[in-house]
Structure formats: C-alpha cells, structure tokens
C-alpha cells in the first residue's frame, strides 16, 4: 500500500520531514510529496533537497550513505555528519538510499519546493542473499574528486580473515595497494614509500603516536567501537597537516541513543567487551569498550625457563559520551587509553601507554554552514627496562600534545563544499629519564630534556563539481612551526661535522621563547575528469610539511623510539606528492578497476650515522643526518563488489630511495649515492576473497606477497682475539627473502538460536611459511666464522578461535 505525504510549501524556509522508518525493502516504493502538486511549478528553477541520514537503532548519523536518483543517474553521499545535499528540477523521481550493512530505502518522491527529507536506516541482518563489499556510494571511486582515498566501514573489514580472531584496521589497510609494512612484528605501516612517522594516525581527530599493540601484531583500534576509517594516501585535504605521506582518520562510534547493547568476544589470547546505551533516551548516550590480553598462560607452558619467567600483556579502553542538545548541536567527549607490557625473563622489558582525551562540538549554524570544534589532549609514554643486575635501569621517554581545531563546512549546493578553519598543536617532548633499577644496579640516574614546539595551521579546501564530468578539490594550507624553550641549544663550528669536538657555543632559552621558526604553504589539488559514466581520470598534487620526526635506528620502528620536534638542527620534512589514476567500473559497478601512478619527493628525511647513539643523548644532532628521499610506483587494483564471491586483487610496484650526501665523508651514506630505504619493497600482491557458505556461514581468505626488504649483508669477516668481527656491504645493498602468506577464516553466525552471535575460526599463515623478518649473523660455538641466520616471527600456521556475541 502506498503512503502519500503532502507538505505545504513554505516560501521563507524549508520544511522538515521526519519519516520513521522509511524503508520499503522489496516492496513497491512509497511516494513522498514535497510541495503543492496542485499548483504550477517552474520547471527551470532548481530546488534543493537536503537532510540527514541516521541509523534507526541509535540515531547516529551515517556518513557515506549513497543517495541516488535513478532516472537522472545522479546522486550524492552523506557527509561525516550524515548530511546530504541534492539539487533537482521540480518533478517526480525514483530515489534510493543505500549504506553498507543497512536495509536500502527505495521510494518515489515528487518535489516542487526546497525541502528537507531525513532518513533513518534499519540495520540489515547478516543473512544477506549476497555479500556486498562497499562502504561508499557504488560509483564513488569514479566520481570522488580526490585521488588515492580509501574509505572503510568496520562492517567491511569484519569480512576479512582475522589475526588471532581479531579483525584489524591496519592489517586490513595493508591488503590495499601502496601500503605495506617492514615485516610481521614491526610497529606502524608504510604508505607509498614513506616512513611510518609520515602517517598522521587520528582517532576522532586526536593524534596517536603509536598505533600498535604487541609490536604491530595488532593495531590499537578496537573494532567494536570503530565506526569507519579513511586513509588519504594520494591527495590529502587541507584540513589535515603535519605529516608527509598519508592520513589515517579513524572515527569511533557514539553509543546507542535508544537501548542498551552489549558486544563481546572471547578468544584464546585476548577478549573484548563493549557496552553502550542511552543515559537520557534520544539525548545522551555512552559507549565503553575494552580489550585485554591474557597470553601469560601460554608462556607458563613453554619449556624454556626464560620464557616461563616472562610476561606479555596489553589492554585498551575506549569511552565516549555524546549529548545532543538539539538536532543542530551535539557534543561528545571520548577517551582512549592503550597499554602494552612486555618482559623477557630477568633480562629486559618495555611498557608503553597512549592516551587521548577528545572534546568535540558539532553545530549546524545554518542550512549551509556547520561547525566542528575539537579540543584534544594526548600523551604517549614508553619505558624500557634492563633487568640485568649490574646494568639494571628503567629508561622513560614520551611526548605530550594538545590540539585545538575549528572547522567550518560551507555547503552552497551539491557542487560546492568548502572547509575552512585553523588548528593549533602544542608538542611537549617528555624528558628521557634513566633511573637505576633494583638495589644492585651500578648505573647512575640521568635525565635529558627534550624539545618542544607549537604548530599552527590555517586552511581552506573546496570541492567543486564544475560539471558532471569534471570536479576539482583544491586546498591551501599555511603551516608554521616554532621550536620553543625552555631549552639549551648547542651550536657547532660552521662547516665542520657536528660532534662534541666541534661544539662552539651554548645558548639557553627561557620558557616559551622562540628558538627557531619554520613556515610554508602547502597547496593541495586534485581533479577528476569523467570519460564516461563508468570511467574517470584523476590527477593530484599536494605538498605536505612535517615538523615532528620519529627517531628510530633499529631494524624496524619500536615502541621505545623517540619523537623529536624540529629544531635549529633538524629541519621539517617537506614532501611533494604527485599522482595520476585511471578508474573504471564495469557491469553496473559490480567490478572496479583502477591504476594509479605516483611520484614523491621528500626533503630533510632523517637518517642516522653508523652506530648512532640515540638514547639519553643531549647532543642528538651529532648522530643524525638529513637527506632527500624519493619514491615512485604503480598501483593496480581490481575489485568485485557483488556476487557469491567478492574481493579484490591488488598489485603495487614501489621503489623508495634516500640520498645522504653531506659535505664531509662522515655526513655521507654509501658515498652520497641513492640507496634503497629499508621499506623499499618493489613488488606487492594482495588477493582477498569472501564467499558466503549457506545461510549462516562465510568463508574469507587472503594471500599476500611482497619483495624482501633491503638489508646490509655480511660480505666477509676477520678475527680479532676471540671475536669474529663482521664486514658488511654498503647500506641496504641486499634483500631478505620474499614474503608471502595465506590466511583463511570461517565465520558461523547464529551459533545459538535467539542470540546474535558468531564463531570465527581463522588460520593465519595457513601454509606455515617461515617468512624472514631479518637476516643476521652469529658466531657459533666452536667456530670463528659467523654464520647467517634467517629469523622468522611465525614459523608455522597460527590457528585461533573467537566467539562473538551481541545483545
């Protein structure tokens, strides 16, 4: 039966229409009438249809919902606030609203005046007739003006094979082209040949300085509280700044505004639980989620006494309170804390903790203007323990930061979306402090103060649909960084290698006093040209400036590395990123195909002298070098969105180089020639597939291959007394063996009747491939000749089982 709504035209403003709920799955579409159909209407003058898309269960805005006008083959998608904007000629249309995991809304509308139409979407049960992998409007990959943008809904990654029973934000990103990692067990990820510190990792707008648990085996994003996430690896909107390669913008959920819900998962090594519900129904909601590990029981059962005396654990907790003052104003306060602890026997250990406190006020100022005010306080602290009796000590370092950001979004019509605003960040490097540990330690306490600074950015970013075929996203950001006191700055003899021997002067700066200022513009532009409704070409250029650097000189980044702001000796990294891509959809968006070519240059890339001593060094600049980097590559991607089998295949050819060519021999690496970075992996292939098994089960698999990363190899050795001294090649002249891995998982839904639950069996590294993490050399007992060894993190298949339930 058709339901018809008629609304009187109001000449001054717009009419708000609320439909609860508006879904007609598999039924004849409703007809919605907006305006007075009995009066004549102007068929030339365009009218505006706008509104908000929310989730029916908890009234939370849905971003990325695709609104589509069938007859015109035209549409738009909702923004992060769930708001959408369409310009139409008066008339009747078939209209659809779709979002991953939601029951689609299909309807007919007759619209004659400007109007507001809000939608509440119902969550779709898992028993889909087909699996659909899509978090965005179905042709957004073609129409999106930004190049190199990947958006994921958490529902999507829950269909990928899990590691230790956990779906993971960063592991899912590593299946996409252009994103890789140094190896299993290393923190962070590399984007298009960039370093891990060149990725701005945001949780609800707040920076995370470490995104890993258990040295990168898991990320610190709890899937039960994550709403969605977007990775900008090509063109980065001007709203974001401070990093040279990419932005990972992770948004957590607000709690359910209508009823209390619980989600929980129990695994062999870790478990998690999330509670959510209304404090004041439809006004205030809360969500609290936590994960915690209990892997010690495995350690206690290992034969090795050292391992039995070891400990490893992590936990994280997310909390969010959101209050809606009205439909136009809401505030949310969220908190995150993640902690890892790790002890190896009585030898060493480490601990690191991340914290974020975030306040956000969203306000709809008018029909076209909206505002988001964000205030963030963040903190990262790591602690390295040495438990050896004589040298026992604890070494602490970290960084704190505060951010205030005001963003205004102006939506003139569906062709124009302008973001303008400003942000200010204060970075406070925490002192490195070494203290003796235990009664027998012979070490002395030591404290090294670290630098601090403030960064201010002003920006404007416009997305402009010039015509259906051409759209541009252009932005300009101006950033300024000041290294500030209190600090003691050393200067060295001009033209000489920085070392204690060339120390020339020492200057003391008071609190807040400006030591050094760096500033510059960061233009960003991306253009999309549609060749047909299914094909487009996108080109982009952006410049990004980075004033904070991760000082890390190990095989791979570690949680105890030092975050260092720019200072008179360490200039900002400045990256210029260029990319061009071709995008095509086939068979009504069933298949997506794309290829992108990118090129990147980076100035002031931080590199290290041989045997650099980075810890507790108040002359850190004497150990550092700065060079220039370049990266280039090709990304190929093919994805099947709909059908019994879905998934994608991606291939990346990527090269990443660095050149350190100082004036003096000590300031050169590899004689000043270009050499591969240690994350240069020329070939990467990922294949991901997902298949529905009957009514209640799902099978997922992925295969990944990548070239081995560069390393310096032992080329000879000599004996000095009882010690075999290795002789190595030039830096990064060889490669460890190639990496490949196959994972599978099977998820069975509705294990128990009347309960929304599932059981996931997964096997990580199904074929038990011993992938090399590193190649190293040791002098074996009874020999003076070092032998090479390949160290693998996983030596066999790793099965896991997790039971998940929600009610």
């Amino acid at each position: 039966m058709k339901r018809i709504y008629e609304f009187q035209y109001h000449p001054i403003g717009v009419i708000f229409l609320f439909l609860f709920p508006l879904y007609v799955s598999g039924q004849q579409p409703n007809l919605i009438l907006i305006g007075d159909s009995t009066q004549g209407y102007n068929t030339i003058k365009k009218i505006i249809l706008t509104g908000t898309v929310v989730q029916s269960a908890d009234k939370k805005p849905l971003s990325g919902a695709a609104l589509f006008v069938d007859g015109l083959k035209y549409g738009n998608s909702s923004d992060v606030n769930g708001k959408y904007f369409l310009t139409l000629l008066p008339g009747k249309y078939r209209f659809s609203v779709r979002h991953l995991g939601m029951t689609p809304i299909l309807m007919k509308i007759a619209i004659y005046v400007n109007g507001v139409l809000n939608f509440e979407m119902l969550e779709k049960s898992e028993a889909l007739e087909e699996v659909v992998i899509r978090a965005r409007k179905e042709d957004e990959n073609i129409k999106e003006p930004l190049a190199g943008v990947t958006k994921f809904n958490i529902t999507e990654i829950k269909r990928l094979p899990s590691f230790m029973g956990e779906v993971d934000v960063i592991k899912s990103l590593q299946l996409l082209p252009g994103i890789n990692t140094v190896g299993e067990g290393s923190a962070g990820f590399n984007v298009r040949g960039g370093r891990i510190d060149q990725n701005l990792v945001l949780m609800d707008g707040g920076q995370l300085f470490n995104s890993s648990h258990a040295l990168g085996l898991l990320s610190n994003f709890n899937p039960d509280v994550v709403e969605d996430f977007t990775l900008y690896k090509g063109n980065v909107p001007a709203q974001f700044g401070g990093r040279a390669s990419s932005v990972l913008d992770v948004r957590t959920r607000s709690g359910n505004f209508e009823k209390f819900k619980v989600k929980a998962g129990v695994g062999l090594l870790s478990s998690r639980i999330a509670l959510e519900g209304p404090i004041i129904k439809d006004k205030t909601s809360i969500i609290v989620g936590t994960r915690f590990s209990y892997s010690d029981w495995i350690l206690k059962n290992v034969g090795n006494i050292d391992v039995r005396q070891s400990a490893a654990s992590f936990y994280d907790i997310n909390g969010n309170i959101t209050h809606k003052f009205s439909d136009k104003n809401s505030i949310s306060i969220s908190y995150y804390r993640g902690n890892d602890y790790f002890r190896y026997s009585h030898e060493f250990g480490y601990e690191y903790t991340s914290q974020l406190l975030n306040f956000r006020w969203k306000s709809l100022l008018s029909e076209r203007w909206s505002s988001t005010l964000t205030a963030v306080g963040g903190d990262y602290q790591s602690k390295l323990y040495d438990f050896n009796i004589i040298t026992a000590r604890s070494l602490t370092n970290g960084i704190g930061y505060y951010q205030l950001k005001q963003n205004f979004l102006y939506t003139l019509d569906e062709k124009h979306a302008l973001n303008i605003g400003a942000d200010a960040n204060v970075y406070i490097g925490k002192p490195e402090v070494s203290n003796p540990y235990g009664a027998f330690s012979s070490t002395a306490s030591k404290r090294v103060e670290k630098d601090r600074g403030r960064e201010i950015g002003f920006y404007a970013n416009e997305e402009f649909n010039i015509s259906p075929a051409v759209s541009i996203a252009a932005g300009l950001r101006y950033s300024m960084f000041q290294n500030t006191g209190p600090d003691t700055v050393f200067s060295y003899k001009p033209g000489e290698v920085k070392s204690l021997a060339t120390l020339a002067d020492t200057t003391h700066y008071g609190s807040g006093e400006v030591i050094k200022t760096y500033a510059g513009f960061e233009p960003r532009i991306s253009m999309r040209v549609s060749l047909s409704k299914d094909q487009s070409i996108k080109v982009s250029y952006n410049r990004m400036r980075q004033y904070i650097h991760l000082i890390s000189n190990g095989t791979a980044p570690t949680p105890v590395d030092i975050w260092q702001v720019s200072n008179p000796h360490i200039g900002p990294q400045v990256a210029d990123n260029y990319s061009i891509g071709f995008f095509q959809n086939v068979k009504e968006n069933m298949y997506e195909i794309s290829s992108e070519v990118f090129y990147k240059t980076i100035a002031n890339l931080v590199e290290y002298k041989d045997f650099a001593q980075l810890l507790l060094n108040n002359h850190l600049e004497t150990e550092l070098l700065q060079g220039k980097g370049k990266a280039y590559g090709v990304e190929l991607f093919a994805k099947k969105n709909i059908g019994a089998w879905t998934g994608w295949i991606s291939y990346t050819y990527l090269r990443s180089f660095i050149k350190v060519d100082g004036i003096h021999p000590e300031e050169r690496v590899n004689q000043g020639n270009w050499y591969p970075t240690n994350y240069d992996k020329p070939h990467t292939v990922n294949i991901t597939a997902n298949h529905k098994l009957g009514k209640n089960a799902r099978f997922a698999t992925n295969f990944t291959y990548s070239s081995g990363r560069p390393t310096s190899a032992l080329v000879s050795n000599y004996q000095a007394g009882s010690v075999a001294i290795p002789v190595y090649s030039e830096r990064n002249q060889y490669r460890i063996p190639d990496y490949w891995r196959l994972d599978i998982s099977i998820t069975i839904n509705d294990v128990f009747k009347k309960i929304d639950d599932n059981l996931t069996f997964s096997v990580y590294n199904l074929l038990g491939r011993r992938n090399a993490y590193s190649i190293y050399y040791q002098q074996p007992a009874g020999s003076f000749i070092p032998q090479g060894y390949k160290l693998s993190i996983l030596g066999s298949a790793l099965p896991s089982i997790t039971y998940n339930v929600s009610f």
Partner: protein
Amino acid sequence: MQVNNVLLFLLLMLSNNCKDRYQFSAIRTKNKLVVNGSITDMEGPSYLKLGTTSQIEKDSDPLPGAHVSIIDENGTREDYVDMGDGKYRMDGKTVKGSRNGTYMLEIELPDGQKYRSSPEKMPSPTGTDSAHFKVTKDKVISSEGYLVDNTNIAVLLNTRLPKTEAPAYFRWGIDEVYCIIPTCRPGSIACPPFCYIYQPVSKFNLKIILSSTSHELVFKGILLQTRAVDFTFLVRHYFNITQYSMNLKAYDYWKKAELLTERNGSIFDTPPTNIPGNIYNIADQSEQVFGYFEASAGVLTRVFIDRGYIPIDITSCDWSYLIPGGNPYSYCLNCNAIKGSTNIPPVWFF
C-alpha cells in the same frame, strides 16, 4: 642495555618461532686490508695479523710478506718478524710496551702500498682480577634430535676496578690451554709426546666496563665464558683471562664490535655496518681498511680445572679405552695435528 631476544620472545609468545641457516647468494666483495694486533705491557712478544677480506663465512685471507714496524713516541722503531700465514711477531727488544707510552704501526705491503695506524697511547689504570669456575648442566638437542644433558664449565670473574680521575675502559679476553696425553700403542718403542694446545675461546661475549670517577667498582661472578665439557678436559684445562685497560678510541672500537656481535635479528638490533679502525693508507685515506692496532695495559689471571672436578665420564685416549676395531679418536692418535698444538709445556702448566 640487553634488549636482544625480543623477537625471539614474541616468537615464543606465539609458541612457534624459528631460526634457519641462511646465506645470501652472489655476494661479491673486493679484497680489503685487515690489520689486527696489539702491544701491551705484559711479558712476551706482541703479535699482529695481516689479511684481506675474502668471502662470506670465511676468515680473512692471510697476507704474508709485508714489512711491519712499530714506532714509539720517541721515534724508536722495531720491525716485526714475518712468521708466515699472515702472522707477525715483535719481540720487544727495542720497543717495549709501557703504560702511558704511545705507539704507532707502519706497514708496507708486498705491492708497495704503505699504511699507518694512528698513534695509540697505552693507559695506566688497571684493576685486580680473580677467577673461578663452576660446573653447570643444561639440556640440549643432540644431533640425533634427542634432548640430552649437557655439562658445561662456566668461567666467572671477580674484579675490582679503581676509582679513576677520568673514565677508564676495561675489557677482558680469554683463551684456553689444555693437554692431551696421546694414545700409546702397546708394544710401541716410544710413546708420542704430550701435546699442549693454545686456543682462543670461540663464541666469546665481550665484556666491557667503564670505571667510575667517584668510587671503586667491585663486580663479582661476571660470567665470562660457558664451555661444554669435552675431550679437552681430559687432563688439565687452563683458562687465561686477560684484562685490557683501553684508551677511549679502543673502547669505541670494541664497544661497536660488541654491538655488532650481539645482533640476533630482533627489532632492537644495531643496524649492520662496519667498524672504522685506526689504520689508513698513507697515499689514499679514503681506502677502507679494517681492524685495529691497540696499545693496552694488561693483567693476566689464570684458572685451571683438573679432570677430577669434571663430574662426567670423558673417554680417555688410553689404548684400553679404545674400541677394538673401531675408529680411534684422531686427537688421541695425533694430537699435534690440532691447531695451536705444541709439545713444549708452558712453565706454569703443572
């Protein structure tokens, strides 16, 4: 700080870690000069070893035929004697190592290339050492794949380092001397002589300690070496422990050597690179030369273990122990074939 093994730990956390032998293929290296030696204030000659880098998993190729001299701060010079096989000996007839003395090497290779070391000053402070041993047991996987008991000798050091005005740097080296009484076949006219074998201890973990400028340092029970019990403990087994007092440059060299030799593939490893030495080509200072010539004050401490302290059976070379018709142990029949063997007993051996 001991932060090695971290990745191994993670592996064990997952209960299935692994380490496999690996060798890069197609490694190419150009022969480069390696110089290694020292002068100390201890009794006896000083030795120097010359070689060239060769290939992976092989010691440097010996370089005989060079003309090597040592020069002290007064310009006094003494030539090294070429012992063959890349080894050179300096008897200290005109240049004797003494504390606070400064020494420099000059090397002329057979191809005429000339090299020189930077002047090395011998420091003066030394500590007081004593050593003892302990029998330990652990379990190892045998070559047949069985878990078997293993008996070891742990060599432990006690040391007392004086308070110094400026930081002083100490390291310890260890070598072993043992005796083999070879098999005397029944009816032989004369039994073969005893062998005394001098060997550096392989798989030695460097021990480097800094002195304190505020107080005396006392360390007890520093584990210098753990060695599996084998036929070398048949008679008497000596460990010669030498304390070297180094200057800052030598300390820097050995500290870097320690960092490189303790690598185990973990994320905390020092990135592999080469240790700069103190030898340079006079004509081309950009040429890469490996090794170090060191002037250090030395203190020697000995500890020995007699067969009676070993709590397990070790098959003797006595004829009656040999399996009839079986293969007698080669070291029992011809102990002179063991590298470092001599039939002249050290004066301190018995």
